[in-house]
């Protein structure tokens, strides 16, 4: 069964550094998402992406965050200048259509900002 893959599985970075989290969504999916989960807390929506542009973003997704689909397969999340509070598990998800279809999640990237 096709899977959403995320790399790396764990990223450690220093405060103020830029990080790029990478995702390869399922190939025939059209809608892409980033979520994050701070340890012990709920899964929070960051951003959705469709047709090469952001379709919706949350309050968390401020100017420090950006997403890109640089080619036909990758979907990246960039954090320009990381803060301690960015430490979390970041999940990429995709789905084939925009409604009435479940999200398919990757295994996540654990980001640790020191």
């Amino acid at each position, binding site marked *: 069964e096709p899977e*959403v893959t*995320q790399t790396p599985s764990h990223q450690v970075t220093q405060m103020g550094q830029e990080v790029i989290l990478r995702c390869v969504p399922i190939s025939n999916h059209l809608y892409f*998402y980033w979520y994050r989960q701070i340890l012990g*807390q*709920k*899964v*929070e*929506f960051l951003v*959705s992406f469709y047709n090469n542009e952001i*379709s*919706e973003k949350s309050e968390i997704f401020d100017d420090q965050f950006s997403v890109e689909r640089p080619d036909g397969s990758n979907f990246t999340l960039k954090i320009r200048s990381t803060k301690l509070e960015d430490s979390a598990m970041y*999940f990429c998800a995709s789905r084939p259509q*925009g*409604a*009435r279809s*479940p*999200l*398919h*999640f*990757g*295994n*996540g990237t654990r980001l640790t900002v020191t």
Partner: protein
Amino acid sequence: AQSVTQPDIHITVSEGASLELRCNYSYGATPYLFWYVQSPGQGLQLLLKYFSGDTLVQGIKGFEAEFKRSQSSFNLRKPSVHWSDAAEYFCAVESPNTGNQFYFGTGTSLTVIP
């Protein structure tokens, strides 16, 4: 505002016992409903989904859930729990009227004792 409530933060059951995990949502119309399971270090795996029709839905791993409109609930059940069911369970709501966003509950952690 849309919200998803999972009242039980942590549940412990004996192997072989039945299980019910509660989920309540606050939404103006019938949303699309999902249950996901997260094993340690893993992403979120879809257990089952409800869009319309029969209010009792069957999922993978022997799980089922029942949509009750009058109670705004979508509780997850399993007749006989296995040790491998120990995980974090998330209820999620897709909101058709707000860009088909997914909203997750805070999760219920399930411990299974022999």
